[in-house]
């Protein structure tokens, strides 16, 4: 029957290139471009983006030049060096270790943990939410029971118990432990949106077009919740940067030879440090706040970009 279509249409293979070019020139910008335009239009957001990207790059590169074991050596002579001194412009901590260097390596570690954790937990949460939301029936029921069970677990307590059990734990195991729990919020969000999406006719249209279920989930539905995914992932990332600080504060964080923003901020658990040796914890705390605020701000822009494309859809 293709012939029938050929007969009905005046278009033939000869026109293909020309028409394709025409179409290309009229092509609508992609989502990425819309987001980029949104950033270009919003100076503070652009600044936030530059800060974040620049900072991450700086930290990643600068950390390469720092010999961490050497940096973490006790240097008795520099004990609580005040900031703005010759050797340590951000001062030194109780073991005479440079705060500035620790800040760089610590940021690298914390950001690394945040990236790893965000990657694992978001991927898992998204997949879980999509699958659970798309398949109703026993699959969803079973997945929901698992979800309920995970939600019931007192997360902080279980993490602390796990941390004390694992003998050789380090940044990677810590990331994995957190990942056990941090997918839940994402999965719930994604599931509820997937439930709504799965009811839409385009999914039915895909089914009647003979598209395989997994393709429908990941090629059809997922792009439609991509703005949600981007925003959620961004905000999770912001949250995850500080994720190990609480544990470090309670004394269950990273090993002392592995600096992180958390171990630095945990210096604040000694009230003497709060006032007298403020440089041991304050820069890290400020850094977390600035990073988190910047990323949240970027998240807002992304959300707006997503909304704008929807608004556009209504007025056109």
């Amino acid at each position, binding site marked *: *029957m*293709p012939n*029938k*279509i*050929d007969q*009905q*249409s*005046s*278009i*033939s*293979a000869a*026109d*293909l290139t020309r*028409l*394709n070019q*025409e*179409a*290309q*020139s*009229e*092509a*609508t910008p992609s*989502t990425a471009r819309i987001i980029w335009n949104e950033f270009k239009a919003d100076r503070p957001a652009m600044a936030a983006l530059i800060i974040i990207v620049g900072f991450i790059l700086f930290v990643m590169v600068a950390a390469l030049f720092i010999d961490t074991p050497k940096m973490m050596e006790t240097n008795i002579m520099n004990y609580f060096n005040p900031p703005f001194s010759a050797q340590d412009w951000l001062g030194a901590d109780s073991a005479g270790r440079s705060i500035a260097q620790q800040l760089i390596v610590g940021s690298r570690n914390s950001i690394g943990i945040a990236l790893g954790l965000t990657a694992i937990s978001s991927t898992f949460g998204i997949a879980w939410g999509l699958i659970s939301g798309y398949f109703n029936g026993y699959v969803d029921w079973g997945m929901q029971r698992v979800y309920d069970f995970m939600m019931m677990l007192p997360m902080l307590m279980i993490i602390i118990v796990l941390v004390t059990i694992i003998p050789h734990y380090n940044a990677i195991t810590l990331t994995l432990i957190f990942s056990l729990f941090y997918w839940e919020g994402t999965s719930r969000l994604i599931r509820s949106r997937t439930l709504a999406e799965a009811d*839409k*006719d*385009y999914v*039915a*249209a*895909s*089914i*009647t*077009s*003979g*598209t*395989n279920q997994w393709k429908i989930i990941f090629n*059809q539905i997922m*792009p*439609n919740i*991509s703005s949600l995914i981007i925003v959620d992932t961004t905000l999770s990332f912001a949250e995850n940067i500080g994720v190990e600080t609480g544990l470090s504060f309670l004394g269950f964080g990273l090993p002392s030879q592995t600096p992180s923003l958390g171990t630095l901020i945990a210096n604040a658990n000694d009230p003497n440090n709060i006032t007298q040796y403020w440089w041991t914890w304050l820069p890290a705390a400020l850094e977390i706040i600035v990073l988190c605020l910047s990323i949240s701000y970027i998240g807002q822009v992304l959300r707006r970009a997503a909304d704008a*494309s*929807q608004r*556009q*859809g*209504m007025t*056109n």
Partner: protein
Amino acid sequence: MSLIEIHNLKVHYPIRSGFWNRVTDSVKAVDGISFNIEAGETYGLVGESGSGKSTTGKSVVGLEKVTSGQIIYQGQDITQPANRRRLHYNRDVQMIFQDSLSSLNPRKRIEDIIAEPLRNFEHLSKDDEKLRVLQLLDIVGLDADALYKYPHQFSGGQRQRIGVARAVATNPKLIIADEPVSALDLSVQAQVLNFMKRIQQEFGISYLFISHDLGVVRHMCNNIAIMHKGRLVELGTRDDIYHHPLHIYTKRLLAAIPETNVNQRAAHRATRQAVEQAYQDQQARYYDADGAPFPLVAVSPTHFVALPADFAQSLAHAEQEVQA
């Protein structure tokens, strides 16, 4: 042989209740309907919301899990997903949806949307595929520059035409059109209906046209089925239904259609209210003890009505006499 035969189709949704959350009852969305679809014909399925007409359409296209009954296509019961897959059923049976915006994936470009069934069933080369998409766009009256745009950039009517283009992409034998124009403005509705008609004539497609708008159905369909409470109450040709309705429910539906003839609005209202009164008063005669419609009986080779046989015959006779 009919293109598709539907036998005693039932779609029930369970209602869970009680302490153990057992299935204690069910919503009978579709409760035992049978009819055949012939090649090249247009069937109208009419009813109020909740009558089960959409569910019927979705069952035929394979979107709804059927509780019981068969839908026979090429000798196979396609209520089994395995049979649907094996037959490439959805290459031959496609669907057009009511909401043109939600039925087109907002994150996909038009090319990908129209090519989706092609990719699943035809496996064309890239260029062939693109050519086919361009031709399809041409057929539904859209320019090539639509190719890389997103659905939200089109008007409702254009989108519905894209939906039509997708539906015909694989040269289907049957298209289920579920309220394809009810969300559209009058002028746009006309456009889409015209396209659908044209395509049907040119490709010899069958339509199962689901609508609550009797005006549109009448315009489009040769054969019409009236649905109520999950069952068919009347089935017949356009003429049978519009000019010789037998079931009180059919009459009521027809009477409720607003007339554009302002000069007779009083008379029309009087007729409508009389039918409504009759409908309220005569429930017991037209429905069984449970309030459900009776099984269909034939009153002519084309005309079926859901009434006890004798009552149906007497009504048919009365009708003929009036006509005479």
